[in-house]
């Protein structure tokens, strides 16, 4: 695995597009929570108190930052699409196999990026939540609610896996980006809305929605009736199942088809 990671490092080390998108995505995590933190802490302080929620105080800050960061995940997904479809554009996916990688190793190489990018997003969010909790909060440090950051990490993992699957299926960068953005930003939300309206809470079990259900914004989450949703464990199970199925489909595609 060390050799695979080293090879992937050589591929991106001098790839400017990769670093630019990565830096933007990384900045977006603390930046995304900055404005809400300022508004809630300075302008809506009384309103937040009335609702019994101070979103940027411990322990709620973990959930708040996890929720806001989840909107930036698409950028990491785009990075994933670019990394994978580049291999098809340059036909280096074939060359890696010809030169002596097992097909499985090609999948491991791309799963390495799923792990690396998701851990980076997770750590940055954890750091952001911790910092904002001290700067904008008025309660002592607490790790209660830290589970929301774990949910966020799983949301990033699933999003990156979906980006990987779309990329190995459609192979072409432009098409894969359009499909990925279309699905994550609009299509699934529309399906969730339609399903929830027609058949009820089962609409919350679509892939990315399982993570969204686990990551409500603190104040809003309190307002949702428990009758409208399943227990968190159901969504968590669904989320883990989707990750496993998507990874299985990626292996199946790469191991069985012509490259």
């Amino acid at each position, binding site marked *: 695995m060390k050799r695979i990671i080293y090879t992937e490092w050589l591929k991106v080390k001098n790839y400017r*597009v990769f670093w630019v998108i990565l830096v933007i995505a990384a900045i977006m995590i603390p930046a995304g929570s900055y404005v809400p933190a300022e508004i809630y802490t300075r302008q809506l302080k009384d309103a937040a108190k009335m609702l019994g929620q101070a979103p940027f105080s411990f322990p709620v800050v973990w959930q708040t930052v996890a929720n806001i960061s989840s909107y930036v995940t698409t950028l990491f997904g785009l990075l994933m699409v670019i990394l994978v479809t580049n291999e098809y554009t340059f036909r280096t996916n074939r060359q890696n196999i010809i030169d002596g990688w097992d097909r499985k190793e090609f999948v491991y190489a791309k799963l390495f990026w799923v792990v690396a990018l998701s851990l980076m997003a997770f750590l940055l969010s954890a750091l952001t939540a911790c910092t904002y909790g001290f700067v904008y909060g008025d309660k002592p440090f607490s790790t209660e609610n830290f589970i929301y950051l774990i949910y966020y990490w799983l949301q990033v993992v699933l999003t990156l896996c979906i980006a990987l699957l779309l990329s190995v299926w459609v192979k072409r960068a432009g098409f894969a980006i359009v499909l990925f953005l279309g699905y994550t930003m609009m299509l699934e939300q529309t399906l969730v809305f339609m399903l929830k309206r027609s058949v009820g809470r089962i609409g919350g079990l679509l892939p990315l929605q399982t993570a969204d259900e686990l990551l409500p914004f603190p104040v809003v989450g309190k307002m949702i009736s428990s009758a409208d949703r399943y227990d968190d464990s159901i969504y968590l199970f669904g989320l883990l199942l989707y990750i496993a199925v998507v990874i299985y489909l990626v292996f199946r595609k790469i191991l069985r088809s012509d490259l």
Partner: protein
Amino acid sequence: MPVLSLQNVSKRYGALQALSGVTFDVPRGAIFGVLGPNGSGKTTLLGIVTDVLKADSGTYTLFDRTATAAERRQIGTLLETPNFYHYLSGYKNLRISAAVKQRSEADIARVLEICGLTARQHSAFKTYSLGMKQRLALAAVLLGDPEVLILDEPTNGLDPAGIAEVRDLIRRLADTGKTIILASHLLDEVEKVCTHVAILKTGQLLLSGAVNEVISRNDYLELSAADNGALKAAMLQYPGCTSAEINGATVIAIFSATPDAAAVNAYLAEKGIWLQQLLLRKKSLEKTFLEITNVL
């Protein structure tokens, strides 16, 4: 022990049967030409051997073992086009090749020198000419000095000087005892270097084996005299002459075995036919190939 052994390998793309039950062995140390017109299945065959394509049926072994990534790492392969990361330099691309092949990066300078790319090694791949890209692909093939090379149309995109260089390189590599599998539709290229051949046509293996055993390329004589009609009639009576045809100002006489030009000259002189021209020629592989692929 064969370096590569194929048993009944078949592959279909939709309605197109790209390969039909192909079976042959590539012996160690051979320069093995895989010949065939465009679309005959050469690249499909090599794609299967290098695991970028999946055979529908049949099996193959590398170094007498079930082919895995470890076996492929012992082979330097150039399949179709040079595939590199466009945004990286030639040198950095070779670092990736070395990492995948598990070869030392210390060998990069040597292969760049052999392929004449030392001066441009730090330029981005996307700035290379077609010939330079092809030479970088050859440099990647040579990384780690593998014992077996698979070269699919290695002179693609090269100018005449580049073609001559690659041909010379292949000969030099062959002299060191390496096994080279060379797919090409340029028969002139193959004729000059190959010891063994496999000929494919529309996915079918027409024949395979040592060049001299499987391809009958009998020598022939090109003659002319004052009366070519009499010359033709006399040659048809000569023992071992299977045909004699007037072709423009000359008579082409074909034999069942290599003819003795001096004996033919003496024979014709006895018959009072004085030659103005007598040339011993070898049938080109191209002519033989066309005969085989048209007849079989």
